[in-house]
């Protein structure tokens, strides 16, 4: 679905490379990109989205060569929810905000409203359509931003730190959205520091460290490599660490798995 070949990037000619020689292929598996701050994760997704231009290498999204398109043209193909909701709210009502992207990609007003309302209902904002987005709580603003991008029905959806400011109910909504998108055969990617959420919801995990891919595999495989994760200053989820300390051989990812394994 996405093919990244020999990708390198630096913010200026004199500056050190933020990403160096990245080669990755993305299929329909839900994918988490993890790593410490400054590892190059956000730069990587900005390159995928066409917001930055690669110094070297190639990114293909389906048949599209990212270099040949502007970020706005790529909006039909790939959606990105930014980390800070305050930087991505442009309209005066919740409904207008959710329709903003849809109208930009020249969708008819009726269809746009239908898709926007449906996405807003999914995130629990169906009863706040006429509210000013800035009157919402931080958690609701984040959900509004997610709904605004999900409504655009792009083939690829990238979430930057989706669980920030979310309580359990908010996380549950995001979990459901990810499952729904997966059912629709869309590629869901995230940049995230919440390892419990990664373990419970993502099939594939990529660890980026100092601009390079340090680990890439199934989430269970990745979280089983404690020493390599240490190198990237990444800790496995709490339940995985507890299971390991209790001497369980299998790499545990969820509380349910832990209980099952203990019951054996």
């Amino acid at each position, binding site marked *: 679905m996405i093919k990244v070949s020999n990708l390198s990037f630096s913010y200026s000619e004199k500056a050190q490379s933020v990403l160096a020689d990245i080669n990755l292929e993305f299929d329909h598996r839900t994918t988490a990109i993890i790593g410490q701050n400054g590892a190059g994760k956000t730069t990587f997704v900005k390159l995928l989205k066409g*917001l930055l231009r690669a110094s070297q290498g190639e990114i293909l999204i389906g048949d599209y060569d990212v270099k040949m398109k502007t970020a*706005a043209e790529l*909006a039909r193909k790939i959606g990105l929810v930014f980390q800070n909701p305050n*930087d991505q709210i442009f309209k005066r009502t919740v409904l207008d905000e959710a329709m*903003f992207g849809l109208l930009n990609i020249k969708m008819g007003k009726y269809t746009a409203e239908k898709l926007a309302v449906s996405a807003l209902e999914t995130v629990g904002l169906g009863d706040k359509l006429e509210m000013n987005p800035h009157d919402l709580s931080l958690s609701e603003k984040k959900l509004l931003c997610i709904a605004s991008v999900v409504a655009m029905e792009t083939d690829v959806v990238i979430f930057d730190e989706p669980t920030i400011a979310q309580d359990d109910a908010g996380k549950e909504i995001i979990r459901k959205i990810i499952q729904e998108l997966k059912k629709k055969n869309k590629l869901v990617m995230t940049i995230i520091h919440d390892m419990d959420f990664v373990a419970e919801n993502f099939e594939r995990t990529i660890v980026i460290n100092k601009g390079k891919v340090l680990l890439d595999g199934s989430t269970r495989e990745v979280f089983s490599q404690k020493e390599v994760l240490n190198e990237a200053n990444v800790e496995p989820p709490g339940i995985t660490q507890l299971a390991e300390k209790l001497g369980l051989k299998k790499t545990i990812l969820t509380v349910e798995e832990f209980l099952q394994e203990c019951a054996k």
Partner: protein
Amino acid sequence: MTFLKSISLFVDRKSFVHDIDPITKLYYILFAIIIPIILPSFTISAICVGISILLLLAAKVMRKTLPVYSFVFLVLITVVIIQGLFRPGNETVLFHLGPFAMHKEGLLFALTIALRVTNIVSAFMILVLTTKPSTLVESLVRKGMSPRIGYVIVSVFQIIQEMMSTMSTIMDAQRSRGMETEGKLLTRIKAFIPLLGPVVLGSLINTKERAMALEVRGFNSRNLKTYLYEEKTFPYSKAIQAALLVLTIFAVAWRVFL
């Protein structure tokens, strides 16, 4: 990861001009402005400009002055042309520009203005290019300026940087959702207008939060505060300040008695 671009013109170099404390540099600016007023001769202005240029060369910041000088000279050229052609009292024709005559009197007057402006700009550049804004503000606060005014000055530098970074993020978010911001001038102008709402609103929200954060961290406390940086001192500061004062008195005496 985002990088904030600095809007300060300060150039970090090792030179004796950098070592001089900001207050002495302020004395120098005052001196460079006052002397050509007291002694309004072409030569005195030229000497002041010469001293400032020598100091800028010694500070190794001459390259950074070029864009500033270019802009100033662009404005001054228009002054020279207008004064040379149309100043009342123009008599001696030097040469012709098409149907218009360039006059000696207007040209000399314009050159005097140009020299004075260059002198003031050069003196200010010594301060701006060789002093960190925070060091300057802290020096002024030590001399009795209100810490609130000091904070306002320093925070302008921070806030403009932050606003530029926020604008770039907001533009990215708009492009992500299909709004074209690249290409023709008209497209860019169209994209700029919707940018203003979130930037201004975001700044207002930030201002409110910043004010509360300042309050929480004791900004309005009436106790004596500890300064963040050590006071910048230069061993010859007092001598330079005294010399500038003596030269000013000497200039006044020259003007009055000779």
